[in-house]
């Protein structure tokens, strides 16, 4: 079965092409059949391949399939080829599985949109690009997928192109992530120039042989790759694009800006873990970036009104957890959290989509409320997803993955009690903003009437993802064991005075505190929340957090405005002034010389005489 690997990528790609070329002439039924089933078939093949991989493991627990040589110049010879190991297998399973449910949901959600076939073409292309990124056996092909998902993100955020605000958000996403991509591109040059190959496994092998731990080149290469990773995964300082990305259709937010694409950075760091292990400074940066992001984004999530923006900041924060895990060397924990996060965050977004549609495109959580009875499916989806996100002990998947990370933040070899504390504060914030959302949206008085209720195509994905968000934690042990075929196990250094159980207890307390505060402020005494924002300090803090700590303002002032200014003042190309200057000079001298053409013979005679004298003088005296 494993030879079918290429089909996993090829089927969505082919479907995307067909939809792009012929989609506008097909009926919606055909578009649906093609767009949804392509991902379904891809998911089924992925499962078959996975079964094959587990039951009859290939040599070295990795399978390579090379389709053709892409470019061959001197020793630069990247292939179009796929590499399947435990890491990429887990990733593609989640992407195709979650991707399929989101596509099914979209079939109903987008049914009455005028760009129906365009939407599915983009979505299919996105899945194909994401799978290319995950399966690529060399960094150049990975980069192709990497840019491909960035492109699809741009296309889908700006899907409703008539509103210029959507276009702005789309361009912002593409450009900000491309800033990171540029760093990554330079990393590719550095790695190729050092080792003469683009194959990821060869690169890692040679790097561990030739580079000493902590060598400058290793740190530089790791940091450049990290630059790409923070761009795609919306981590500090390039996190600014993700909240705006919510301008796209909600299934897009679920698929791209929550479940899959934004975790590409996590994948790349995990994929090149050997390199990061050689560069402790870079790995520490990963942990620091993750910690800072999870706190900052958690605070911002507390202040947002837009239901999707709350979830967006929550995504940024949760990916911060994954980065923290990678940074301390808890590689498998990061991937585990990626998986559970994909389930519950897709669930939350799809639930949010159902709510927004039901309330006729209402996004503000302060104009929702009391929807528990009106939209039971969305309520249960949100409750389960929210509990999993907050990490409700024992019964939710999020609990297992998040606590593994928090525990690793202290106990791992590169861990530190400081990271553990950050993780705990993050847990408190997570619980606070999650339950704030739930209490505001589903409890209290009904504020906006419900006009539409989700049908089967939207309900089934919600139910499936809800089940996964609960039982996903059960696979913890086998999954971690399986991932160790590709990733090193976490080296436990132990934590003085702390055990995993105690850590879990503290985390549960953090959750409960958050829950209680949210209950107090957003359900029982809502006036408290208003009072907190009303006092001067609260207002400043609220405004600051609401504006994402002022990053947008900073970039706008420091980068965007100067660039626009430079472009504007030189619109007519100052260099051309030089050449038009020559032309003017020529013209002017012609006019001056023209004055001498008087038609008076005596002037001409005088001119000839003076000229002769001058030349004679020159001849005599030189």
């Amino acid at each position: 079965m494993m030879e079918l690997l290429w089909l996993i990528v090829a089927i969505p790609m082919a479907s995307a092409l067909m939809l792009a070329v012929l989609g506008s002439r097909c009926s919606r039924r055909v578009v649906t059949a093609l767009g949804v089933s392509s991902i379904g078939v891809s998911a089924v093949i992925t499962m078959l391949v996975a079964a094959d991989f587990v039951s009859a493991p290939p040599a070295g627990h990795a399978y390579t399939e090379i389709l053709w040589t892409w470019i061959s110049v001197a020793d630069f010879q990247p292939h179009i080829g796929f590499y399947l190991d435990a890491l990429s297998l887990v990733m593609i399973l989640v992407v195709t599985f979650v991707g399929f449910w989101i596509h099914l949901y979209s079939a109903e959600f987008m049914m009455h949109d005028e760009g129906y076939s365009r939407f599915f073409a983009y979505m299919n292309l996105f899945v194909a690009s994401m799978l290319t990124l995950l399966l690529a056996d060399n960094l150049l092909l990975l980069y192709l997928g990497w840019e491909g998902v960035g492109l699809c993100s741009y296309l889908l955020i700006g899907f409703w192109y008539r509103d210029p605000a959507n276009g702005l958000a789309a361009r912002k996403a593409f450009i900000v992530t491309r800033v990171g991509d540029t760093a990554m591109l330079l990393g590719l040059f550095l790695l190729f120039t050092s080792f003469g190959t683009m194959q990821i496994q060869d690169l890692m092998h040679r790097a561990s042989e030739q580079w000493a731990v902590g060598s400058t080149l290793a740190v530089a290469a790791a940091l450049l790759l990290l630059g790409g990773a923070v761009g795609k995964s919306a981590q500090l300082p390039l996190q600014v694009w993700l909240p705006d990305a919510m301008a796209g259709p909600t299934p897009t937010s679920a698929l791209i800006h929550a479940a899959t694409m934004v975790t590409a950075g996590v994948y790349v760091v995990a994929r090149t873990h050997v390199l990061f292990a050689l560069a402790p400074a870079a790995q520490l940066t990963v942990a620091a970036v993750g910690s800072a992001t999870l706190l900052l984004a958690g605070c911002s999530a507390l202040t947002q009104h837009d239901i999707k923006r709350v979830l967006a900041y929550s995504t940024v924060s949760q990916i911060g957890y994954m980065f923290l895990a990678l940074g301390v060397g808890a590689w498998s924990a990061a991937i585990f959290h990626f998986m559970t996060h994909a389930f519950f965050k897709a669930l939350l977004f799809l639930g949010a989509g159902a709510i927004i549609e039901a309330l006729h495109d209402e996004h503000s959580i302060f104009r929702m409320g009391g929807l528990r009875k009106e939209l039971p499916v969305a309520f249960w989806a949100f409750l389960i997803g929210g509990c999993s996100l907050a990490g409700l002990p024992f019964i939710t998947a999020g609990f297992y993955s998040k606590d593994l990370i928090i525990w690793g933040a202290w106990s791992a070899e590169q861990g530190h009690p400081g990271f553990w504390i950050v993780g705990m504060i993050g847990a408190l914030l997570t619980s606070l903003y999650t339950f704030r959302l739930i209490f505001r949206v589903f409890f209290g008085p009904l504020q906006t009437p419900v006009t539409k209720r989700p049908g089967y195509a939207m309900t089934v994905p919600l139910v499936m993802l809800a089940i996964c968000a609960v039982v996903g934690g059960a696979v913890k042990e086998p999954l971690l064991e399986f991932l160790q075929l590709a990733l090193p196990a976490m080296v436990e250094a132990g934590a003085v005075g702390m055990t995993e159980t105690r850590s879990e207890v503290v985390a549960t307390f953090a959750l409960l505190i958050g829950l209680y505060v949210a209950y107090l402020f957003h359900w029982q005494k809502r006036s408290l929340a208003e009072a907190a924002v009303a006092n001067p300090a609260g207002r400043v803090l609220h405004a600051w957090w609401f504006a994402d700590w002022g990053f947008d303002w900073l970039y706008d002032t420091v980068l965007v405005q100067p660039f626009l200014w430079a472009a504007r003042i030189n619109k007519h190309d100052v260099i051309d002034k030089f050449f038009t200057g020559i032309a003017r000079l020529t013209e002017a001298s012609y006019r001056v010389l023209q004055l001498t053409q008087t038609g008076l013979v005596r002037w001409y005679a005088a001119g000839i005489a003076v000229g002769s004298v001058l030349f004679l003088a020159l001849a005599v005296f030189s």
Partner: protein
Amino acid sequence: MMLVWLIVIPLVAGMLAWLTARWSTQLPRWISLAAAVLDLVLTLVLWMRSGSAVAAGAATVWFAEVDWTWVPRFGIHFHLGVDGLSLLMLGLTCVLGLMSVLCSWTEIREQVGFFHFNLMWMLAGIAGVFLALDLFLFYFAWELMLIPMYFLIAIWGHERRIYAAIKFLLFTQLSGLLMLIAILALYFMHYQTTGVYTFQYGDLLGAQLTPEAERWIMLGFVLAFAVKLPVVPLHTWLSDAHSEAPTAGSVILAGLLLKTGAYGLLRFVLPLFPHAAHEVTPVALVLAVLGIAYGAVMAFAQTDLKRLVAYTSVSHLGFVLLGIFSWNPFGLQGAVMTMICHGLSTGALFILVGALQERTHTRDMDRMGGLWITVPRFSGAALFFALASLGLPGLGDFVGEFLVLLGAYQLSVGITVVAALGILASTLYALRMVQRVFHGENTQRWQLQDLSPREALIIAPMIAALLWLGLYPQPILNTFAPAMHNLLREANLPAVVWQKR
């Protein structure tokens, strides 16, 4: 003989087109179309043959040659030769020539015969430039391609056509004259050392020059090619010429005339003056990244759609210059790849802009917006070429630019960083263009016709070609790789830097 036909066919077709115009306005179009197709077929045949020649391990890089004595007294020959590089340039000439004929089908309504005469003679001149192995013949072809372009802009151009045409002529003629002086200087110096009068490329390759002479003569060549390429700050003729020319003129300017500058650098400057060229490498690299960045920022600032695309050419050709002066296989092959892909993607963008202007009678982006609503397929195609232009992996331009950057990285990390930022800047202008023209609300209430079958026939093959070049560029890379290795060998500096690793 085939090489001669490649030039003769368009020359004859041009004459016929002019003559037959008195009977019918359709006839010149069909004649030109037939000539372009015929040339394309001939080039493909040559390419097939070259494939077998490479496979057979041919000792020479010249797949085909024609060498007739023209003026024996002065050592002037009619010497044509084709290697991988000129073959691909020839292919590009035929493809874009064909597209130019097709895209002028409804746009040109005045003096149809004379238009096609100019178009065909220009193509003949360009083919001559890519084929000539005799410097006298080269200069002859160089002039042959410029004069018809002058008429094309001056007669069928837009509002400021006379200004643009004269500017174009002054820039290219002055720099061309400098090249003529340099050619003659080389000719006489070669005579002084060997006692033989010759304009033959092969003979002059071994010319013994003093370093001082080599520098000055190279400068003459370089200036002519730098104006064509164009190298910032010699680019200012380009934005005017591109935006005022008729569509076919813009396509050929961007797709082919600019490439003759790069071709000249590759064919003449590097092999004839290796030492001097090596000396100016730092300057060339700095000018290259300056061009990349400056072109991108200028493109971002424009509101005239054609000017925007014109400035993107400045940026992309900066990559070509960067690759050429990287002195390694990555850079050189990347440069040629960029030349080909830029010809296709920018050519296609000019065709689309021209088609848009034909429909809306404006190039002002402030008067556009929301066109996706009325012309979805047209907009999708434009988006595709905008993406190619911003270097999206999987499309041809990326392969070229990636290789160029990889080549430049071997020389200087700093230069590469700035050039990579240029790719980032390409995102800015390409997305801005898509936004201003196709996205947003259709405020001007345009109701336009979507891609016609004729336009689809032009655009679809170009989309396919860019995808092919992006995903499986190897046949193309293989075609010109021997020529590039030969070039490095002739430049007597066998891949210095690249082998250091």
